[in-house]
């Protein structure tokens, strides 16, 4: 008898979205802080 694969893809999608949001968000924050420090 073959075991059914667990259906838990939403957790995976959430993890990938959160990771991308944090990393891209920090890249944007760094760019904005660099621009602000150059302007001031």
């Amino acid at each position: 008898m073959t075991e059914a694969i667990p259906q838990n893809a939403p957790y995976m999608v959430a993890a990938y979205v959160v990771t991308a949001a944090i990393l891209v968000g920090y890249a944007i924050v760094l760019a904005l802080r660099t621009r602000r420090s150059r302007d001031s």
Partner: protein
Amino acid sequence: MTLVQRGRWLTGIGLLLLGGVYLRALAFTPVELHQGPAQKIFYVHVPAAWSSMLAMGLVGLASILYLLVRDTRYDRFAAASAEVGTVFACVMLTTGPLWAKPIWGTWWTWDARLTLTLMLFFIFIGYQLLRGAVTDPAVRARSAAVVGICGLVLLPFIHLSVYLFRTLHPQPIVLKPSAPSAPPEMVTTLLLSVGVFSLLYLGFVIQRYALGGAARDD
């Protein structure tokens, strides 16, 4: 090319490659039969954990060097690495529970590995708070260096916690004396992801270091 531009390029390339890692992990790496798609969280969680530990390791080493030679560049580097490490620790601490819920049936448990990892996060936060609270640059650098060295001391305990204590957390897959305990496709995806996260760490740290140099108030 200035330092900040180099950092931006590395970050941009890193983010593009991260898209490639997502594609490989989601479309070209097999689904683990017992854990299902949630197992693929491993390809972002483990590299984030690696990057945050790399960041703390370098904070600790830079802190030791600062206390030995009193060169402020080491202090600036430690401050940059600690901030970037906090970002990766956030990724680690959000993706971990997202894996634990479907696999363990709970978001969090006070297991040795998880608790020590949370301590690492608090050391990162404490390091930032301390730097923000102390105004005298010399006192700030010296005090922060002590916290950075405490973080460095914690790292071996985090890595060995799965051997030293009874724990729910999976044992290391790659960083262990025997051969990797996963199929080659999964190990390749993991190693690619570790490489991309390391590149992102480098890009972020270079930008943050340059920012610290421009502001002189990190």
